[in-house]
């Protein structure tokens, strides 16, 4: 028994690699993606306090005026500085999806661990509950939530978190079941370790890589869906800046031949989602 446990410990140690090493293993693409994300995160944290112009001050004489001199990306339909609005919109565009991912990952991991640990009836109940949740497409649930609780980022984010939970739980349940049936878990049980301690100190760290990979992929989906809700006018409310809102409010400029503000906001979303997708793909391969 001791030899088995010792072997498992070595394996656990090997699988718990540092974040830096894990990133290096993702290659050049991984490093580029991480850099893009770092810039986006930085914009979300300090963006609103370093805007060169007031992001909410309209100046109709500058409506749809292009970039010039000190101005990087031109002005939007109300003559507001597009670059400033991109920075000011970064927090809601980035933190919204982050909270969706955090909520659904915590809920999904909990359900998966309980399901895999208890098996039997508990597993059956949780699994069929999740199957029923699958019947609600994420965007539909978010629209429904805003119809009931009023338009806003909170209702939409909560609804998306609920809609994503079964996806997290289904993948992790499978992995947790495999992990649960490994000999080291039985060894720990025989030694008298409590279920909570085995789950939190052994199962969870061993599922860590998979959880991180899934959270990364999910962030991209959450970003697209939340921006879509704001684009539909049911999420972040104008005049507050948000990348989804910026596309919606500058849509008229496309037909009028001045697409830059909408394209800037669209590119911001696409860049972050590409980075997240590629990084997530590489993390999945390692997990």
């Amino acid at each position: 028994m001791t030899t088995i446990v010792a072997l498992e410990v070595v394996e656990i140690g090997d699988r718990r690699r540092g974040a830096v090493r894990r990133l290096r293993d993702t290659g050049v693409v991984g490093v580029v993606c991480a850099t893009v994300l770092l810039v986006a995160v930085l914009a979300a944290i300090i963006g609103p306090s370093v805007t060169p112009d007031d992001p909410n001050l309209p100046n109709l004489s500058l409506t749809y005026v292009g970039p010039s001199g000190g101005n990087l990306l031109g002005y939007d339909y109300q003559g507001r500085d597009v670059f400033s609005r991109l920075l000011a919109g970064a927090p809601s565009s980035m933190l919204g999806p982050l909270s969706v991912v955090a909520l659904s990952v915590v809920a999904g991991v909990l359900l998966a661990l309980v399901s895999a640990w208890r098996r039997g009836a508990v597993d059956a109940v949780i699994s069929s509950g999740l199957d029923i949740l699958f019947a609600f497409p994420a965007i539909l649930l978010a629209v429904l939530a805003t119809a009931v609780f009023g338009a806003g980022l909170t209702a939409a984010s909560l609804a998306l978190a609920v809609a994503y939970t079964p996806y997290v739980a289904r993948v992790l349940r499978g992995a947790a079941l495999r992990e649960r049936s490994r000999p080291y878990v039985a060894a720990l049980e025989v030694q008298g370790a409590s279920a909570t301690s085995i789950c939190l100190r052994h199962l969870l760290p061993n599922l860590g890589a998979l959880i991180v990979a899934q959270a990364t992929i999910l962030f991209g989906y959450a970003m697209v869906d939340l921006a879509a809700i704001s684009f539909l006018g049911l999420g972040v409310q104008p005049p507050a800046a948000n990348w989804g809102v910026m596309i919606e409010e500058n849509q008229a400029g496309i037909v009028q031949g001045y697409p830059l503000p909408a394209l800037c906001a669209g590119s911001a979303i696409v860049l972050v989602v590409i980075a997240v997708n590629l990084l997530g793909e590489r993390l999945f391969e390692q997990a």
Partner: protein
Amino acid sequence: MRRRFFLRRLVMLLASLLIASFVIFGALFLAPGNPLAALSGGRSLPPSSLQALQARYHLDKPFFEQYWYWLSNVAHGDLGLSITLRENVTTLIASRIWTTAGLVLYASIIIVVIGIGLGILSGLRRGMLDTSVLVVTAISAAIPAFVAAIVLILLFAVKLGWFPALGNGSDVVSNIRHTTLPAVALAISSLAIVARVTRAAVRAESGRDHVQTAVSRGIPRRALVRRHVLRNAAIPIATITGITIASLIAVSAVVETAFSLNGLGAYLVQAAESKDIAVVQGISLVLVAAFVVVNLLVDVAYALLDPRVTLGTRAQ
């Protein structure tokens, strides 16, 4: 064995629909606002007629009784009255459902033809084509439908003038022209995902031992690809195609809004904004039903393609 599998799936479908209808109806209860406002049109009514109306529409009954009343009406095709348009929700949905169905169908065809086609091509041939498919799909998988919409409008409606930018058509031909850009916008990211999964599946199957054996036996490449590679790769391809097509049903709301199409999704968004609860309930129910049915069809197709599923030897 197989019959039990299909029966189980059918029961799950009905249970999902029933619970979904409960959640959707429960939303009406949580939502602020008085359902009688739809009938009184905002006028204040004398208490006696208020009571009469409440009794007539079972609004004085407990929650579950009201739910049952609503559900039996739904089963008879009656989805209630729209507050804003003062019209039957069933009629309002019926006049818009074909726009959405046509859009989703059009996008599905694009996904199947181009997505699976590209995936198979790049899966079978290594080199330039494969690399460019990988790069293009990595980018287009990250393009949200509404971003695709503005780029398509800019390129093909404003700059080139090939397609109309907004609105529905008046006859079949102009309808197809009006739906082309929306369908592409709806398909673009799913197409990329389907192409990538198809490519991976074809690659994985080509590397299997039985394919190598077939190669060494000198089976012609055409037959090899058709009988040994594609037949096995069909299982993951059918699954991912089905799942992504099902997901289009909800995303159609975004595309319809971006292109001002008069479909169910765009109407759902308008109704959510104006708190027209009966409409929100009705459309949500239709969309969830469509989503669940498509998912069931995927499961059935999966089971038909892979007998191991119904035999229960494959856990996932």
